């Protein structure tokens, strides 16, 4: 480029250089770039900035473990590798922001991530992520039971038809167990507490209805669908009134104000059609395209999904109160794979889908069949339920609500799992015995500390740097989830 405008010219003769004959209007023309300047000089500039933005923060920023922090167990750490090597972080970020907590209704984002939540060497490489095609998973631990996770990893459309997540059925059973352990354990103590609560509720649900535990990994894919009827029906005698035992568990796991609630919307074709649309969109993967509880995902689940075709079924069929159905859709069924749809469906839409569910025994799920108000099965409480409610009045919840909020996080979790149970209540569960809120809290506490101690001893055996032992015994802070 000999025609370049800048030509420093030949080196001058010895002696002082001649003064410029006129003022140089562009001082930049004196700044000649040499190879030294553009290599060494550029690297010095680079190094200066690197010192400020890399070396300084990395060396000075070293937050202590937060109260909520827990280490990962060996299985969860192995699951973290599966998470990394399959690129899950490209769609699932790993920190929740203040505005997420404000925006997240119900359970989605109960807490903001703190620096101390990322303590420890088992948390690298980082999983902060930059995109949320799927939800953030910082607070996922304990929101879905393991059998939901397995069905979801096998085919995400089984449990969420709108999901864009790829199927991970190529993973081995071992890998998917680890992955599930990681998802359950990654949310700190609060997550472990939720997970422990779910495990306890599942324990009760299985015992009350005499179901076998759900398979782990992808073994469920080859299983036959379990029949959703109450196996081993036993009865609980409370206050001289007899109600089938599974129903008692069901009632105690639902908020009392919904026990006798009826559908507030008028039964019209429009409402029923909208309900059918939602049902076919969201529910058929588990509950089956005929509503018989035999969807493709049902094979992974125990207790199995509800069968809506049975007119006489006290627990799940057409004789259960619409309020009970509503509460199940809104908040999920503790311990089962029924998750809360309160985050994704509007209140009216939930009532509509509940209304539609009450027509399913009349074959309204067949394609092309328009549900009519004549198909709707009007619900009236049966005598034994009325007697039970009389013995456990709904008003009884008033002092329950007004008393000071319990500070024991395990009791809070017990109340979250059994929102219909008053402090004075107790129920009899086969193979478990009589349980009340205190014993439920103790059970959850036992599961929680088993999980926590396992993670600590695994981390210690791996030689990770751990905070002082006292951190372990700080209890998780109860989180107000609202209702």
């Amino acid at each position, binding site marked *: 480029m*000999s025609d370049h405008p800048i030509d420093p010219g030949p080196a001058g003769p010895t002696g002082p250089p001649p003064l410029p004959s006129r003022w140089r209007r562009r001082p930049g*023309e004196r700044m000649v770039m040499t190879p030294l300047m553009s*290599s060494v000089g550029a690297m010095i500039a680079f190094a200066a900035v690197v010192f400020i933005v890399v070396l300084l923060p990395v060396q000075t920023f070293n937050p202590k473990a937060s109260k909520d922090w827990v280490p990962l167990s060996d299985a969860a750490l192995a699951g973290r590798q599966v998470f990394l090597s399959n690129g899950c972080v490209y769609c699932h970020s790993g*920190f929740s922001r203040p505005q997420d907590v404000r925006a997240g209704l119900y359970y989605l984002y109960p807490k903001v991530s703190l620096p101390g939540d990322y303590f420890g060497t088992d948390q690298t490489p*980082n999983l902060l992520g930059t995109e949320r095609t799927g939800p953030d998973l910082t607070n996922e631990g304990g929101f879905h039971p393991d059998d939901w996770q397995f069905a979801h990893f096998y085919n995400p459309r089984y449990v969420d038809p709108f999901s864009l997540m790829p199927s991970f059925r190529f993973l081995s059973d071992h890998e998917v167990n680890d992955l599930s352990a990681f998802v359950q354990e990654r949310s700190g103590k609060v997550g472990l507490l939720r997970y422990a609560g779910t495990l306890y509720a599942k324990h009760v649900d299985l015992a009350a209805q005499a179901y076998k535990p759900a398979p782990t990994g992808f073994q469920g894919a080859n299983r036959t669908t379990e029949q959703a009827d109450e196996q081993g029906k036993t009865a609980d005698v409370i206050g001289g009134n007899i109600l089938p035992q599974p129903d008692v568990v069901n009632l105690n796991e639902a908020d009392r104000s919904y026990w006798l609630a009826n559908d507030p919307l008028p039964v019209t074709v429009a409402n029923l059609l909208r309900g059918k649309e939602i049902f076919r969109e969201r529910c058929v993967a588990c509950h089956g395209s005929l509503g018989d509880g035999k969807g493709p995902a049902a094979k992974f689940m125990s207790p199995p999904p509800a069968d809506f075709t049975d007119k006489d079924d006290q627990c799940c069929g057409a004789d259960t109160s619409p309020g009970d159905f509503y509460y199940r859709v809104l908040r999920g069924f503790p311990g089962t794979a029924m998750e809360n749809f309160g985050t994704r469906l509007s209140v009216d839409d939930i009532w509509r889908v509940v209304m539609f569910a009450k027509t399913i025994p009349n074959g309204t799920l067949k394609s092309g069949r328009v549900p009519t108000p004549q198909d709707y099965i009007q619900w009236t409480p049966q005598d034994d339920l009325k007697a039970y409610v009389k013995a456990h009045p709904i008003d009884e919840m008033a002092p329950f609500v007004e008393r000071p909020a319990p500070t024991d996080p395990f009791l809070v979790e017990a109340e979250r799992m059994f929102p219909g149970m008053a402090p004075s209540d107790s129920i009899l569960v086969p193979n478990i015995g009589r349980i009340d809120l205190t014993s439920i809290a103790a059970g959850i506490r036992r599961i929680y500390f088993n999980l926590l101690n396992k993670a600590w001893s695994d981390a210690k055996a791996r030689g990770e740097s751990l905070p002082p032992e006292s951190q372990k015994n700080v209890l998780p802070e109860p989180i107000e989830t609202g209702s």
Partner: protein
Amino acid sequence: MTLAIEFVSPDAFSGYSFLEFGRIRPMHVNGVILAWLTMMYFGALFYMLPRLVGTPGMWSERLGVWTAVAWNLMFVGGIVALATGHNQGKEYGELIWPLDIAVLVIWCANIFNILMTVTIRTIRPLYVTVWWFIASPMWLAADYAIGNVVWNPGDIWGSRSGMLGGSLQDGMLNWWYAHNLFGLWLTPMLIALTYYIVPRITNTPLYSYSLSLVSFWGMAFFYTGVGDHHLLQTPTPAWLKTIATLSSISLMIPVFAFTINILGTMKGNWEKFFTNLPLRFTMTAFVFYFLVNVQGAFQAVQPFNKMTHFTNFVVAHAHLALLGGFTILGMGVIDYCVAQIYRRPLWSRTLSEWQYWLVTIGFTGFFSALTMAGFIQGQSWAAGVPEVNVLPLLHPWFIARAVFGAMIVLSGIVQMVNIYLTVRGDTASRLARGVERVAGRPLVAGGASTEPS
């Protein structure tokens, strides 16, 4: 040198391919950055540097060819590793440790080659492009080595490798490194190539030397510190976020300096924008590059970031730089260099026009679709709608993105055909015959070059 260029084919932009997304995505990212853009840049560098410093070729042509071959072998290894789930688990730093070392060795060989070429130069003053050719690869080598923590290999075949002890430290380093892949390598090379192509094709001296100094040192100081703007809402130190935001805004200074410089050079030469295709590619890329920087500066400001972070808006922004800026420039550079190296016009001007319009329209649509998707996501999340519920709303935009993405891929295929036929056939006499048919008389000898001389 030809080898380096011929190996390059514009990478497929996979669009709506969510099948095994988690593994395809690092292949796509690494493919675009390391296989496509880096190979294109080195090809262009090997072509331009000797011409700028007045040497018959690079210091060692053989070394250049070997590094190109080795680079491609390295990348084949990288694709296999990523496809089988072997990665470091760090966004943009997925290649496993042995491949990191291979990258650095090849890269240092190239730096050595460049520095030796500059040493044996016959033109004493260094043109702007040469500054970048010297500084940028050195920056990237340092960035790559620090960012991948190569002194801490860990589990060299798997995920726990090349990381710092703490998660947030690792995150800060990760994003500092990732953004500097663009800031210290891809962007400076775009500037360098534009500084070469625009004055060369328009046959006009560069508008201002001072402005090019501002753009060089501004980039060096401001771009190095922007990485933390990916973490504006993470629990990381606030002072670092402030530096990142300020750096991102300050980047406007070198960007405007560069913009004014190029526009000043183009003054009076705009008719060539319509007649000369490589110039048109370059200037289109230049416009997209300018836009991406202005957009980026706003995106790095907290209130704006709150709405756009995690959404497809960011994906659109990344594609504006890598596809709109660097890739479109790369297409022009390949068209230019191949015609120059073989001393013959491209096989078909029509195909080149198709290539241009396919990629320009395709990219504009692609960008708009993703931006709209990003707005929908941001607004919906702010209103409390969970992520999964937003996905059905994005569906039409994802379809649009796939259609426009197909146009971009098609554009790449058109160029491949055109370049292949140019290299294989005698296009000079073909053009002469064409002119003869239209004009009724033979073309004057030597007028076949696409470049006005």
